């Protein structure tokens, strides 16, 4: 079974630029999560999708972050414009419907200069 795929693995941008991350969850997993992990901290949930609907986006900075999961499969997370404090690893995870075990992708390491 293929795992959660994320791209790109690394991204370096300058502040005020835009960036987008892509996630392909495990086939059949209805729930998809985006996390932000700042160096030295645990992951922080940004947004949770159930199929293509948003379940929780309470910690998503909506003035600059957006996410979508149009067909209930792949998802993209966008930052526009980026700030220095957005430097972090962005993790995508998925889980089967009704189960709490989350399967994580390798993450995208974003550096904002």
């Amino acid at each position, binding site marked *: 079974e293929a795992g959660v795929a994320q791209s790109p693995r690394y991204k370096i941008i300058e502040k005020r630029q835009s960036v987008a991350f892509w996630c392909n969850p495990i086939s059949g997993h209805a729930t998809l999560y985006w996390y932000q992990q700042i160096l030295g*901290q*645990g*992951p922080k949930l940004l947004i*949770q999708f159930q199929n293509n609907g948003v379940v929780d986006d309470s910690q998503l900075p909506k003035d600059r972050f957006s996410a979508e999961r149009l067909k209930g499969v792949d998802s993209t997370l966008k930052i526009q414009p980026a700030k220095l404090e957005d430097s972090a690893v962005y*993790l995508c*995870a998925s889980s089967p419907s009704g189960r709490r075990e989350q*399967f*994580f*992708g390798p993450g995208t390491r974003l550096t904002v200069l």
Partner: protein
Amino acid sequence: TQLLEQSPQFLSIQEGENLTVYCNSSSVFSSLQWYRQEPGEGPVLLVTVVTGGEVKKLKRLTFQFGDARKDSSLHITAAQTGDTGLYLCAGFDNYGQNFVFGPGTRLSVLP
């Protein structure tokens, strides 16, 4: 918002030693999970504990959920260099709505 604390923040030990790391909260959790994260990778689930007082063993790893479901511990017997990584606890609050991670314990096992 539930808060999970983990201790110690860093731990460096020699191969073959035993260790225990802790996860604590002032709030009740319906379940707690332990993950291990290696550099450049996402976290990988080790175990889920659900019942207060529950003990689960995974080879040399022993996980315990506190009776009041506010704390958990992970004990590693005869640590190996392959145990090196960031150990994260995470859980759903008692309403099953909010999922949060602790800050992690970074373990280094030296040969």
